[in-house]
């Protein structure tokens, strides 16, 4: 697949760093993602992928660097305001509302994006919001589970609902943190189909350990290791990249800088 040159930048990250006490989780990341681009972010456990997502979504503030979304600096914008720019995300371990039903979960995502959180009256708009929630549920294949309380969904269904919550926020940039984690091969297949079929205008960032999912969805791949970007290219380039092979298949690897923790490269990281 040919990579189109970045037209309008959806996401522009410069020198982004984040330190938790003695751990440099992310250091000096530069990232440019074009509007409508499908980007996979790969890397072994502890590479800083989830921290990068937390920095982009505003759950954690960086210690250095800045983030721009559609040309607007959002480095210190609170998480709840970033959704107004169309930035939505999912979580590596599901963060759902276990005591509410599937329909109510997605409805909350729709209401959150539309504002009106303090509205103590049910209005006509809510029927419309619920209709949209049902529509999203059927896109992720949960249309016959609408009234089921989330706590009694299977793991796979909870992962589908994670994606549904990100879709509920009228996304322009969707960040999916290991959407296929723990899914069966069949579920992975339908998830991949869903991701491929998304509106081409939506920018997609996917953290995924499953190479088949990641490389089928992505037009471009960024590889992280120990808080840094170590490779960036098309799926074909990344497949042929010796460094990436070493990282994923467990050849000894020397971190590119002495500040790295110096371990983790020797283990095979396949999960």
């Amino acid at each position: 697949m040919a990579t189109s040159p970045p037209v309008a930048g959806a996401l522009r990250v410069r020198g982004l760093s984040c330190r938790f006490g003695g751990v440099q989780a992310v250091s000096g990341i530069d990232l440019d993602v074009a509007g409508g681009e499908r980007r996979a972010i790969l890397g072994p456990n502890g590479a800083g992928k989830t921290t990068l997502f937390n920095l982009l979504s505003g759950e954690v503030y960086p210690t250095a660097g800045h983030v721009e979304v559609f040309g607007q600096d959002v480095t210190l914008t609170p998480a709840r305001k970033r959704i107004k720019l169309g930035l939505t995300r999912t979580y590596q371990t599901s963060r759902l509302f276990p005591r509410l039903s599937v329909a109510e979960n997605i409805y909350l995502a729709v209401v959150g994006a539309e504002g009106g959180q303090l509205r103590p009256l049910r209005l006509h708009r809510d029927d419309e919001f619920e209709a949209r929630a049902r529509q999203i549920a059927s896109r992720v294949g949960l249309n016959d589970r609408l009234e089921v309380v989330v706590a009694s969904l299977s793991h796979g269904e909870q992962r589908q609902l994670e994606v549904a919550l990100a879709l509920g926020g009228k996304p322009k940039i969707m960040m999916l943190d290991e959407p296929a984690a723990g899914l069966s091969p069949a579920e992975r297949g339908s998830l991949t189909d869903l991701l491929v079929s998304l509106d081409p205008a939506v920018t997609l960032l996917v953290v995924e350990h499953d190479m088949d999912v990641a490389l089928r969805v992505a037009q471009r791949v960024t590889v992280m290791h120990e808080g840094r970007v170590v490779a960036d290219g098309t799926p074909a380039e990344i497949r042929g990249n010796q460094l990436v092979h070493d990282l994923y298949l467990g050849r000894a690897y020397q971190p590119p800088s002495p500040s790295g923790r110096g371990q983790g490269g020797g283990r095979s990281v396949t999960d």
Partner: protein
Amino acid sequence: MKRLRFLGPHREEAVGTLLGWLWLKRVALAGLLVVVLLVPQLFSTFFASSIGVQSLVLGIAAASIIFLNAVVGMVSLAQTALYGVAAYTTAKLAVDLGVDPWLAALVAVGVTVVVALLFGAVASRSGGIYFLMITLASSVITYYFFSQVTAFGSHEGINGVTPPALLGKPFVDPTGMYYGALICSVLIYVLVRYLRRTPFGYALQGVRDESIRMRALGFNVPLLRTAAFAVGAFIAAIGGVLLVWYNSSISPGTIDLTRTIDLLTIAVIGGLGRLEGAWLGALLFTLIQTYSPRYTDRFETLIGLVFLAVVLASPGGIVGISGSLDRWVQRRLAGRKA
């Protein structure tokens, strides 16, 4: 009917037994409602007043705790103090300033909600045990404020509050007061049930279940918590107004730490998960408080034992017992048919 699938091969017979059980429950509930509706006619003046009115009023106050816990997941120790604010405001306006009791009540509810917004703005930035401690601090501050400020009668409090003529004199004829408190209880119950199905109510339940997700979905979590706290204060304030009308006085002893813990005890005995538990807990508490002195002067020990018994036997409180019975019946049926 989906829930009946577990019954297996002898489904029809089992369904019959189950329907019988459900019917029994419905009859029991209807009977209870009739009794509740006819308390002033069926019981003595003393009972209707000391047990009837008092349970309803304490129940409303406890309902504010249960609302906050069940819908938003916040356990508050400030509710006694907040109903004290409403009671004191009503008394001050009516007795010292001669304001009409209805107007005094209205202003009192408004003042309580404003105070709660201030307390809530501080407390709502925290959660769990920290929220509990901050609300406890607000409660203690309120207690000392009313017990020190002479404009509110300091240790004596304010006496001689008369309820509106419509509600009558609670100790002579509690009928008006009883139905007043009953109507308020029903309205609060309906209000909370409605609120749960509004965007605001769903947002509160979202905050209860997963506040980090709520933030990412675009919700202002501290604002929602503060607003919920104000709704809780609104409920408690209605209880406070009724309390001061019923007792015709208010003093710091009514809002001290012991009373704060009493109210939490009522909520836990009744069941923190469901609103109706508030009134059931209040009824049990009031019965023990009123009748135990005939047999023992160790009320605290007794209520402590009852608390332990209820919590151990049914973690969901008195309202939880119904659910436990449901599950027991289902297990029995499933076991017999297997």
